[in-house]
C-alpha cells in the first residue's frame, strides 16, 4: 500500500503524516517548551507531544476509513488532550479540514489546498489572531497560501507540499522580531520580540512533516 506520485494523498499518506508529526514533535518537545518558557509558560512542547501521542494511539486503535474521518479523529484527539491555546487551535485546524474534505477516500492537491485554507480560517476565527501577531497563524497562513498558489498553478503534489513547508518555515522565522499581540506572549509586550514563537515553530513542523511523509512514501 505504499503511495505513488499520482498526485493524491491516501488515508495511509495522511496516517504517515500524523506519525511523522508525532515523531518530530517528540524529538522537538524540549526545544518547543524552551521556546515557550522564554515568552510563555513552558508547556508547549509537553502539550503538543501529549496530543500527537494521543493521535498516534487513536489512529492505531481505530484506523479511519477515509480522509475526512482521519482528520476528524486526529482533531478530536488534539482537542481533548493538548489543552492550552494550541489544543483548541490545532483541533480546530483539523476539524475544519475534516469538514472541508468530507468522506473523501483521497485528496488531490486542490482539495487539500482548499481544506488547509478552511482549517487555517478556522484557526483565525477561533483565535482572532491576524498575521503578524506572532502566533502559529504566521506559519500556517503562508503555508495555506503557498499550497493554494501551487494547486492553482497545477504543480505536482510533492512540490506543492514542499513549497508550503518552505513558506511555513519562512513565516516561523519571521516571528522572531515580532511583538506578540495574542496569547500568553502578549503579556510580555516589547519583551516578546527577539524570540521564535513556539506555536509557529510547531506549525512549521506540522507542514514539514506532511512534505516529508509524502516524500518518503513516494520516495
Amino acid at each position: 500500500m505504499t503511495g505513488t506520485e499520482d498526485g493524491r494523498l491516501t488515508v495511509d499518506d495522511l496516517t504517515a503524516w500524523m506519525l511523522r508529526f508525532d515523531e518530530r514533535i517528540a524529538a522537538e518537545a524540549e526545544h518547543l517548551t524552551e521556546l515557550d518558557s522564554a515568552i510563555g509558560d513552558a508547556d508547549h512542547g509537553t502539550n503538543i507531544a501529549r496530543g500527537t501521542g494521543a493521535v498516534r494511539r487513536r489512529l492505531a486503535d481505530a484506523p479511519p476509513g477515509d480522509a475526512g474521518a482521519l482528520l476528524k479523529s486526529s482533531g478530536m484527539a488534539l482537542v481533548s488532550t493538548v489543552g492550552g491555546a494550541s489544543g483548541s487551535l490545532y483541533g480546530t485546524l483539523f476539524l475544519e479540514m475534516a469538514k472541508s474534505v468530507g468522506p473523501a477516500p483521497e485528496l488531490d492537491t486542490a482539495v487539500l489546498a482548499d481544506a488547509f485554507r478552511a482549517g487555517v480560517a478556522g484557526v483565525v476565527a477561533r483565535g482572532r489572531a491576524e498575521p503578524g501577531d506572532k502566533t502559529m497563524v504566521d506559519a500556517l497562513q503562508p503555508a495555506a497560501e503557498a499550497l493554494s498558489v501551487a494547486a492553482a498553478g497545477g504543480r505536482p503534489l510533492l512540490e506543492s507540499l514542499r513549497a508550503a513547508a518552505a513558506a511555513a518555515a519562512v513565516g516561523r522565522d519571521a516571528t522572531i522580531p515580532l511583538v506578540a499581540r495574542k496569547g500568553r506572549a502578549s503579556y510580555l509586550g516589547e519583551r516578546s520580540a527577539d524570540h521564535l514563537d513556539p506555536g509557529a515553530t510547531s506549525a512549521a513542523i506540522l507542514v514539514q512533516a506532511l512534505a516529508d511523509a509524502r516524500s518518503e512514501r513516494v520516495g
Partner: protein
Amino acid sequence: MKKLIDAPSEVLADALKGVAAAHPELAVDFAARVVARATPKPGKVALISGGGSGHEPLHSGFVGPGMLDAACAGEVFTSPTPDQMLAAAQTVSTGAGALFIVKNYTGDVLNFEMAAELADAEGIAVKTVLVADDVAVEDSTWTAGRRGVGTTVLVEKIAGAAAEEGADLDAVHAVATRVAENGRSMGVALTSATLPSVGKPSFDLPEDEIEMGVGIHGEPGRTRAPLAPASEIADTLVSAILADHDFTGAPVIAMLSGLGGTPLIELYLVYGAVASLLEQRGITVARVLVGDYITSLDMAGCSLTLLRADDEMLRLWDAPVSTAALRWGA
C-alpha cells in the same frame, strides 16, 4: 527539582486520587478529570470552572455547597479541554443551565468557548463570565487582555451563593459579572515556580530581585525590582490596584493569597501592611481572606485582590459555603 511526586506526567492523575480519598463528599471523574459535588442540587444553576492545575486550591478546592458544582482540571499550567468541560456540564447541570467561570487566558477562553458550543448542541444553556482582573497587565483589545487571577475566587464564592439560593442563570451571570468587573489583583514573585514536566525553574530571578506584577504561570510582570521590605512591596501592590479602580465609599473584600511557597506568617505580615495602607487611604475592608487560595505551584510570593463590593455581594459572601478550602456557616 525536588517534588513530592512519582512521575512528572502523572502528577495530575495522582493528585486527583488524593482528592477523591480525602473528600468523600466529592465525585472525582478520573477519565474526564472533573471534580464535582457528589450530589448535584436539582434545579440549581450549575457553576463550572476550571483551568490549568498547579493553582490549588483553585478550582477543585472550591467545589461544594455554596460555591462550584464542578471543576475541570487541566494539566499543570495548561487549560483543560472542551470535552472535560462538556462532561462537567453534563454531570452537574440539572436543567437550569450552567455558568462557566473562565480566567482570561487564551487557552482557557478558547477551550471553554468550544465547550459552550458543544454544550449548546446538547441543549444545555451556558453563560460565561470572564475574569480579567490583573492590573499588572496593560488592558487592550489588541492583545490577549488582562489575566484572570484572584477575583476568580470571589466570583466563585459570590455567584455560588446566588446559585445556591435559587437565582436563575441570568441573575447568577449578572452578579458574577459585577464581581468580575469590580475586582482587581496584582501579584509579586520572590522565586519562580518549577513545573514537574520541566524540572527547573521557569525563569531566573536573582537572589536580590523580585518580579512585580507576576502572573500565576510565571508570566513576567511590570518590573523586575530589587528585593524590598514587605511594607514597600505591599505599598506597590496597593497603589497599583487603587490606581486602577475606585475602592472608596464601598465595603471592600480583600484577599491576600500566597503563591504556594510562602509561609502563612509572611502572608499575615504582608496583610498587616496592606491593612494599614488601606486604612490610611480611607478604604474600608469589610471582609478578609489571608492564606493560599490561588497559587502557582511552589512559587514564593503573594497576590493581593480587592473587590469593591456592595450589600448584595457582602450578603452572598457571608452565605454558607462548604468546600475543601473555604468553609463557613455550614
